[in-house]
């Protein structure tokens, strides 16, 4: 199958790759670009372990073709934190015990990242609804809700002054 030459931004870096037209974005990210944070859990867009941010929207990268990302902007868990620290969501998941096996976590974080931009001051019901495309088998979601509340508060709070 003739390969396509595509280029896009991943975590602020421009990349160029050769892909078969049928290659899924998750495979390009994981196998060509070695960004293995995003995972494959179901291949049917139900579990959300492969969630990344594409052009300002959450997408399930197991059901997006790599060629659809051509010219686009992709953010994965590897690019979530900036400046060497942790993103408030990453802090929240750790503080509130929002993960166990960790397999769903990158997808959860990336969905929560976009969700908090869509809904910066969410209620618990908003969070549960907004995260309903991401499945977790370990936590029962209760601490994931708390982790996102933690991040929402931190993102809303004015910058701390020394």
């Amino acid at each position, binding site marked *: 199958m003739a390969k396509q030459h595509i280029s896009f931004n991943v975590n602020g870096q421009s990349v160029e790759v050769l892909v078969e037209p049928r290659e899924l974005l998750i495979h390009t990210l994981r196998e060509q670009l070695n960004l*293995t944070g995003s995972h494959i859990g179901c291949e049917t867009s139900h579990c959300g372990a492969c969630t990344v941010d594409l052009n300002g929207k959450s997408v399930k990268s197991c059901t997006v073709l790599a060629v659809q990302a051509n010219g686009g902007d992709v953010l994965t868990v590897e690019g979530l934190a900036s400046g060497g620290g942790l993103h408030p969501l990453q802090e929240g998941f*750790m503080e509130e015990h929002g993960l166990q096996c960790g*397999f769903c976590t990158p997808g959860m974080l990336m969905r929560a990242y976009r969700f908090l931009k869509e809904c910066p001051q969410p209620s618990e019901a908003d969070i549960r609804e907004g995260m309903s495309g991401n499945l977790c088998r*370990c936590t029962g979601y209760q601490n994931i*809700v708390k982790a996102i509340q933690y991040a929402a508060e931190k993102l809303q709070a004015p910058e701390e002054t020394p």
Partner: protein
Amino acid sequence: MAATAETITADTLKGVGTSRKRKEDPRFIQGKGNYVDDIKLPGMLFADVVRSPYAHARIKSINTERAKALPGVHAVLTAEDLKPLKLHWMPTLAGDVQAVLADEKVCFQEQEVAVVVAENRYIAADAVELVEVDYEALPVLIDARKATDADAPVIREDLAGKTEGAHGARKHHNHIFTWESGDQAAVERAFEQADVTVSQTMLYPRVHPCPLETCGCVASFDKINGQLTVYMTSQAPHVVRTVVSMLSGLAESKVRIVSPDIGGGFGNKVGVYPGYVTAIVATIVLGRPVKWIEDRIENISATAWARDYHMDGELAADSDGRITALRINVIADHGAFDACANASKFPAGLFNVCSGSYDIPAAHARVDGVYTNKAPGGVAYRCSFRITEAVYAIERMIDVLAQKLDMDKAEIRFKNLIKPEQFPYQSAFGWQYDSGDYPAALHKVLDAVDYDGLRKEQAEKRARGELMGIGLATFTEVVGAGPTKVCDILGIGMFDSAEIRVHPTGSAIARMGTITQGQGHQTTYAQIIASELGIPSDDIQIEEGDTDTAPYGLGTYGSRSTPVGAAATALAARKIRAKARKIAAHLLEAGEDDIEWDVDRFKVKGVPGAEKTMKEIAWAAYNDLPEGMEPGLESVDYYDPPNFTFPYGVYLCVVDIDRFTGEISVRRFYALDDCGTRINPMIIDGQIHGGLTEGFAVAMGQQIVYDEGGNLLGNTLMDYYLPTAVETPHWETDYTVTPSPHHPIGAKGVAESPHVGSIPCFSNAVVDALAHAGVTHFDMPYSAYRTWQKLDELGLNKR
């Protein structure tokens, strides 16, 4: 170097009892986990499996030519190719054999027929489509209750004429074993003399653990050194090493199994599957690393499922509700091969804990295992071997009895619960329950939820035609397999192990025979060592899962890490402390009896300031030792538990059922657990939330359904129910602490209790909502449709 004696506080020690933040989290939240599918080795090929579309069929021919001709395909393997290596069949954990690749016939839909090895996963998937298999369909057996009919199809032709199985006589071509426990004659007498008896047929449906990461491996054979390394999603890497060595003929020292980060197990990753075996064969044959990763359909269809117990329960009782006898008969559907994951001598697991938390004088249980044309299994889905089935049976039966006697469901429990003064309690089935105070736990829960108020509200709602149910479960688990005198897997006793090395500067590394899959071992084991040795847990590195470095252990499943692995950890630490005491006495020029341990140091009794910290002792262990003592500060412990542990809990659930739609809303779920000593309360709460959510999934929607032709109806996450954050209830947790008297730190294990205990609690709540309509039992799952059908049958949905 003279180490300074810093003061260690509870804050810096982070020992047992503190909610220490998890050491695993930093890598997972930054996308730096290392799961099997993340592993990429130079020259790695991909394996994909050709599977049967038929549940039962003879294979007339397999044509692999077109697949082999596809560019990028390196090999196509069938049973014929594995025969010369004698690897076309493999032993199962249950003493049966299983076809690695179908040998002349297929016995369940999605059975492994051939394996394709190719340059990448896309070419492998293409090649799978090009393998041509000609099948001749055979009659299919799906209903376990018809498995031993005289005219039932013969599923296992390879067992023709074998009247003796791994667990005694086989009575029929589809019969695997009969297993019995208890005193049948005493039970019969009790039933004859009883004021009242009840009986109930119950199905515990076939379900799948469905961890978010599927099973997979990367097998890599180094031809020059003759060394095989397999990175594998395994809950039991050491046992797998032994099995791989036995199957392959490679010396066990040449086999290295590594369980890296594992994306949830829940029992699904205990077994050895054909995909692993074929990847190993492929790497040995081709000399290149081979990766095999299941997709979700393969995971749900072919690797280990759980339950499928068809149960008939009976209770005999006095007219005042005192139970006098219990009898349970089970038909256990094991699928086409008995690949049940149990301790070898327990073909029905620990099912004979089915007398539960109750003081029942006479009991008898019988389980008959049968073959059907379904996937082989089954494993313990977030529970100890067959405990979930046992607990479900008794917790449902006691409610059936309460309804027959028109007794309150809490009152009948108080009447029958084992009393605190009866511990250690000898059950009618022969178990010795270690410790507990069941009535106190039940009182605590009833008070917390205002049980009387809830019953009053229910009565008012019932009068208005509304459906509200209150479910109770007062359950006891038996976990921590187990004492090697009774528990083994393939002849290896079910001990577990820990090895600790304290470095000269006072930090430490410890390795265990267990393997975490989300339970947080890297966090909690360090807390145990911290409390025993006074080394801050942040200075203790925990490693598991690499058979080249970790001591041999039986792995993590059946809630055995805390009862067995944590016990080994504590005892290994105590060996170090015993040596440290001798060194301290030498350094302090005092007698061993004259010094005492205090948090992180030994002190000379009555001499303020005469003390040596563990850090100072560690340094001395490498340069300033008592005469004749060997240097170093290390220990290893292989722990053979004297008994199982018996965690317990009291759960209460309140449901409201929409009588027009069948939708069930869980208004309240209150879970009190007693797991003995609590190592990390934050992690315990997390484990309980997770277990309750898995229990909720089982009760409300999970079921692996086959049609009469053996077609699996629903093997993607579109159809197989995993609840989202929206449906999942809010959980309330509580606890009591009754340490296990025989465990070194009194801990019992906790992660599986919420799954085991919640499922009957949901069932009891749903049945309770319908009890006034004469319902004594209603099989799971309680999807809105199934519940609506029930309401329609009862006429409760009429306006």
